[in-house]
């Protein structure tokens, strides 16, 4: 009896370890394979020149511009809205029907798939508001997508600021807004930045929402109402239409590196910030 359970224990431990190795291994392999195939394609020309022959040759410069514009635009819109919402949730209202409603909205938004955002953006920005396929439509749609992430992370960051700091500020005659701007926000900033970086990471990789709102033009846009193609859309089109596997790998490598870099910065910021608060706060 005891022997059997010990055998089973060892068996299960083996299974679990193997599964973990498998899971992590597959993921690492994916990144490794993309980089292995794609890094050789990268060169100054690839990154700085526009594509030729619909992407069969040349570089991916306009798509890099597109990704940067859309992501920056999304952050510019979503960050203030998200941080303000988080301030309200963390510092002003804590419970009650109003707050539950807001949280419901935020959590639901977080679960909505990108294609629905794409359809919405198409219906609302491109058609109803008449912006057409444009940087503006794409950026606003992406802003809606990353809003929940920013709200969630910013709120957590603010709640992590020790309550004692607020009490000190209030006891010295500080108003609520003064306490928020002079004590809470400065200490929550790294966490808030992490949330923004996570949003950036998501925007960079987004395809479905972008393709139906920003279009797929290969020209560098001159105004916010011009259409633009992002790296992920370019990559998708190259791969699916079989235009150029080589350039597809190259684009994928840039994409993967960008996302990894952004997320790495985000987590590094977060961990350093948490360590500082934990070590310093009493």
């Amino acid at each position: 009896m005891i022997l059997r359970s010990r055998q089973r224990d060892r068996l299960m431990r083996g299974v679990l370890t193997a599964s973990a190795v498998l899971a992590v291994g597959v993921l690492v392999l994916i990144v490794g394979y993309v980089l292995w195939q794609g890094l050789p394609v990268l060169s100054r020309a690839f990154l700085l020149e526009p594509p030729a022959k619909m992407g069969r040759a040349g570089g991916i410069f306009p798509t890099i511009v597109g990704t940067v514009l859309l992501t920056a635009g999304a952050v510019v819109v979503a960050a203030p809205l998200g941080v303000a919402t988080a301030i309200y949730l963390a510092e002003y209202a804590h419970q009650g029907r109003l707050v539950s409603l807001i949280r419901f909205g935020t959590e639901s938004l977080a679960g909505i798939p990108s294609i629905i955002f794409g359809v919405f953006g198409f219906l609302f920005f491109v058609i109803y508001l008449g912006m057409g396929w444009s940087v503006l439509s794409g950026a606003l749609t992406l802003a809606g997508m990353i809003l929940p992430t920013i709200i969630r992370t910013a709120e957590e960051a603010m709640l992590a600021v020790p309550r004692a700091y607020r009490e000190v500020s209030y006891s010295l005659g500080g108003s609520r807004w003064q306490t928020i701007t002079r004590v809470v926000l400065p200490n929550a900033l790294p966490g808030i930045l992490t949330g923004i970086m996570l949003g950036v990471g998501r925007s960079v990789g987004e395809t479905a929402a972008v393709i139906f709102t920003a279009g797929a033009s290969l020209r560098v846009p001159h105004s916010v109402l011009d259409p633009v193609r992002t790296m992920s859309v370019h990559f998708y089109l190259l791969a699916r239409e079989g235009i150029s596997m080589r350039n597809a790998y190259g684009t994928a490598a840039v994409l993967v590196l960008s996302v990894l870099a952004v997320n790495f910065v985000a987590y590094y910021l977060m961990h350093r910030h948490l360590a500082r608060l934990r070590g310093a706060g009493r």
Partner: protein
Amino acid sequence: MTGRTGGANGSRGPVAVPGSEPGAAKILARDFKFWYGSVPALKGISLEVAPGEQLTIMGPTGSGKTTFLRCLNRLNDLVPGTRFEGSLLIDGRDVYRPGTDVDDLRRRVGMVFALPIPLPMSIFDNVAYGPRLHGVRGRRLAELVERSLRAAALWDEVKDRLGDSAFSLSGGQQQRLSIARVLAVEPEIILMDEPCSGLDPISTLRVEETVEQLRGKYTIVFVTHNPQQAARLGGRVAFFYLGELVECAPAAQLFTRPRDRRTEDYISGRFG
């Protein structure tokens, strides 16, 4: 000056203290009751504190001492679901009167907490935090910071490193920094909530010395759970127990001839 007992054990008569002028009280509590939700924390406190006086509130944990302090500067407003009855007057005006400028009240009624809580900034910025809230800048700010640090007996130790992080100070120094921080907003009343509870004996003595020097210039309410400390500080002592003010008398009288059995038990260490 009167201290009255309230509560179910029956009242004893008011205890008159010489040298007082009725009507000139800085702090006046009239049958003040306070609840956290449905839990009563203060069951009818009535006491007076004269301007420039130092009152020590002594009692075991849970007796309502901290609650009373936090009502005086309305820091309890931050806790949801509280309720009060009776009145709490400072300079003759009800603290809870609608329309009261709470921020200004908190500036005038400063508080030093039990654990020194330095803000995550430099020593200078900690002390300057309060005045900056109220628009003080430049030269005047620097002078105010120096004056406050001197009054808290910390200036000589930190004058060469005002830009260092406040966390580089020892526990006792941090607590004196908290005192300097409060002094910098030029309050009239200073509430001290067991400020020595986290400190070693030497730092405790330094803080007590500072309190002694502040007496007279500021009205001080000092909370402690330690009868020896209350005895050392002198002045009048109010004994709180389970939300009631049991008795209030000058230290010498309270410790040698306590009127209430509970006071006697507490002083002799039978509980608390």
